[in-house]
């Protein structure tokens, strides 16, 4: 990728940091409320910070806290975390071809830090047909990662004084971030192929709603996203 000319704003590590900034507030809100929830789930500050550093998966960490409080077995929790985070497999499959020319170690580092949000920022960049460098991607990923850990730690510090972060609306940072990320992506896809984008979104909406009655919500997300891909891919040439 080094040989290819990269676009201004997508070249250096610093550019990556800048591209991450719009999502930083979201990470702070969610990470902070996770820290509070973690402390109130009888984990200590070290444990929740370590969890954010090595699991690094927002929704799965909230699920872990809930299951810990419900006295679920370790095997049960680990299996649930696997299912909740399995969607990353699809995101990594989508993102990885863009890094084929980079070293194995760089590939592993990009994959290790891939999140819903960094994948969204990355995908919008791809949809805009911008050329980006590995350094840019690393700047994006590392900024998000560090923000997440710091936010968790800070939330953990005040966790003993606040038991319910929901009253401040902090948990809604997740939904609000998905609103912004989804609409940005949707806008680009609409401008490229309006009919197909609407078909894909309609498929996901309908199938997700139906699936939620039958399977766990993490499986429903994966299956409905695959159905969306199926419809988009089959309508390819029209």
């Amino acid at each position, binding site marked *: 990728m080094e040989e290819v000319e990269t676009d201004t704003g997508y070249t250096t590590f610093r550019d990556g940091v800048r591209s991450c900034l719009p999502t930083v*507030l*979201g990470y702070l809100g969610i990470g902070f409320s996770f820290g509070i929830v973690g402390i109130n789930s009888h984990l200590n500050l070290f*444990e929740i910070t370590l969890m954010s550093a*090595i*699991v690094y998966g927002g929704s799965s960490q909230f699920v872990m806290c809930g299951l810990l409080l419900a006295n679920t077995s*370790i095997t049960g*929790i*680990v299996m649930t*975390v*696997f299912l909740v985070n399995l969607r*990353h*497999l699809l*995101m*990594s*499959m*989508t993102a*990885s*071809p863009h*890094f*084929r020319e980079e070293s*194995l170690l760089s*590939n*592993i580092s990009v*994959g*290790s830090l*891939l999140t*819903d949000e960094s994948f*969204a920022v990355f*995908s919008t960049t*791809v949809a805009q047909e911008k050329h980006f460098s590995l350094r840019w991607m690393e700047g994006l990923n590392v900024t998000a990662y560090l923000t997440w850990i710091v936010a968790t730690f800070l939330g953990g510090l005040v966790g003993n004084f606040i038991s319910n972060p929901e*009253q*401040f*609306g*902090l*948990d809604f*940072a997740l*939904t*609000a*971030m*998905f609103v*912004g*990320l*989804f*609409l*940005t992506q949707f806008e680009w*896809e609409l401008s490229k192929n309006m009919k197909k*984008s609407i078909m*894909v*979104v309609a498929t996901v*909406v309908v199938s*997700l709603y139906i699936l939620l*009655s039958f399977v766990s*919500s993490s499986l*429903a*997300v994966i299956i409905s*996203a695959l159905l*969306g*891909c199926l419809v*988009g*891919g089959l309508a390819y040439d029209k």
Partner: protein
Amino acid sequence: MISKSVLLLLIGSALVTWIPRITPFILGKMVKFPAIVTRFLQYLPLSILCALLLETVFNAKAGSLATPKWDVVIALIPTVITAVWLKDLMKTVVVGIAAMALVRLVI
């Protein structure tokens, strides 16, 4: 500082999260994915962001129809308006959090 069972839990959870994340990146170095896979995955960003967003809106219970979380639905209104109007993720998140705090204060 850390109990043995929590440490075990964290390591297990970290591994089952990490492996699916990096496997495609390792495989992608060795083989090129078939064109058909790439063709379908082209729609993954749009599909999965849509699914993730909607997932946060519903209370799901197997065996019965999903019901909307009404506080989320109400807070979504100013959030979506802000997102469409200002096209600024940070402002969208601020408005969203404020709206939700207000909704929970009232309800």
